[in-house]
């Protein structure tokens, strides 16, 4: 996964260079976006293309992976992070070319099998013995947030697995091998294969998604157009439909 991400980044650098030397404003941009944004951003890209004749090439991966790639010198026009901390890292690296803006929030939900056969209604239920609970690894934001939420609820869970990717949590619940997992609301909405059990705001953790144009942008105008569209009412509507809370 990591290797593939780097290969894609290298490839993007090459193709972007090709676009840059052609002269005149290129009509395409490269966006590094958190993997959880894929369903919403793919729709946004389709709209942007039809309205502004701007083609978008995405590199979807975990926010940490994208941050690493950018710091290692990958070229991109826009970076959309699943939290503000990694955006700050990129900004501190002098890579952000304009303002950063929080454009969406994502909350956690308990993913359970369709129909909720184990009757799970709260975080406290996850501590029941005999229940197979799968969480994201604390090294990824979803896992860190899940731990925070469990701490807020004063619940101790013995997870069967700490998945390095949120998709691992989702697929194990969807396959019926895990009884429950903690993931983003947007993951449950777009997955469509699991049911979501809401977590009260008092216990929940809210992730702030942040977007910025990058210094390495070949196409500043295009990057700004994309940036603006994400924050526009149309862009926000798409994000809302994908399970995000809008700003």
């Amino acid at each position, binding site marked *: 996964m990591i290797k593939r991400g780097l290969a894609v980044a290298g490839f993007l650098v090459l193709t972007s260079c090709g676009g840059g030397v052609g002269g005149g404003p290129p009509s395409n941009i490269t966006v590094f976006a958190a993997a959880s944004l894929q369903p919403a951003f793919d729709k946004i890209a389709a709209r942007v293309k039809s309205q502004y004749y701007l083609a978008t090439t995405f590199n979807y991966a975990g926010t940490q992976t994208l941050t690493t790639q950018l710091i290692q010198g990958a070229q991109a026009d826009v970076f959309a992070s699943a939290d503000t901390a990694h955006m700050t890292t990129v900004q501190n690296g002098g890579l952000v070319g304009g303002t950063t803006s929080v454009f969406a929030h994502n909350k956690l939900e308990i993913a359970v099998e369709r129909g909720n056969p184990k009757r799970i209604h709260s975080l406290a239920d996850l501590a029941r013995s005999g229940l197979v609970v799968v969480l994201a*690894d604390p*090294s990824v934001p979803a896992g860190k947030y899940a731990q925070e939420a469990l701490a807020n609820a004063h619940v101790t869970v013995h997870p069967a697995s700490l*998945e*390095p990717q949120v998709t691992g949590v989702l697929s194990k619940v969807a*396959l019926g091998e895990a009884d429950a997992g903690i993931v983003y609301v947007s993951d449950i909405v777009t997955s469509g294969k699991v049911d979501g059990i809401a977590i009260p705001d008092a216990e929940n953790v809210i992730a702030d998604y942040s977007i910025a144009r990058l210094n390495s942008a070949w196409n500043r105008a295009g990057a700004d157009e994309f940036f603006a569209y994400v924050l526009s009412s149309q862009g926000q509507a798409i994000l809302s439909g994908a399970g995000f809370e809008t700003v």
Partner: protein
Amino acid sequence: MSQARIPAPVLALAAAGLLFFLLPLAGLIVRAPWGQVGPALVAPETATALGLSLFCSVTATAVALVLGIPLAVVLSRTQGTLRSVLRALTTLPMVLPPVVGGVALFLAFGRRGLVGEPLHQAFGIQIPFTTAAAVIAETFVAMPFLVIAVEGGLRSMDHRYEEAARALGAGSWRVFARVTLPLLRPAIFSGAVLCWARALGEFGATITFAGNLPGRTQTIPLAVYVALETRPEGAIALSLILLAVSLAILIGMRDRWLGSP
């Protein structure tokens, strides 16, 4: 007896091939955060993951030996279409993306799996997310390497040894245990080494079927993957430790098993 000289183009390509292998390893060593290797080595998580890796890979190899050698024997005796089908089935895990293998293992041994569901309902046994699941995942992916090597050994074996043993009155089991197996030792050894190495580095099927829990299913490759997200230096340090341990074991075992290198 002198051997024919190796043609220059072959030598050049061999050198290129060696370089291709060695450069990434050299990169790992040159760029290694040596200051972190020490702390990583003594960190309890490292010892846990390393111990688990060794336990799982050795157990997987043992299971592969018990099941794989008989499978190779049967394979080597079949002919024609049956042989092609059996061989394709055996080698399937080699071409299957390991993650797909992990999903397939769920469908067989998971709580909803063909075998896993009756097991779960009758005895309450759950295989996924256990150390046993990690061993199963590694065995599934690595056993074909053993089977292929042993079958090759069987096919190139001089079967007159077995015939001589039979003529001396040895029944099929005695021939197998006293003659076939000892004569296959080099093939079994190289197959077991390949199998073990593949099991040690296994990632995709393990993380899918067994998940990632330190102390239970988090082997070194999984720990490296997780560490790569947050602290790449630690990941490189872990990789180096795995590399050193593998090398030490491979070199140490070779003499013991084969008598001479």
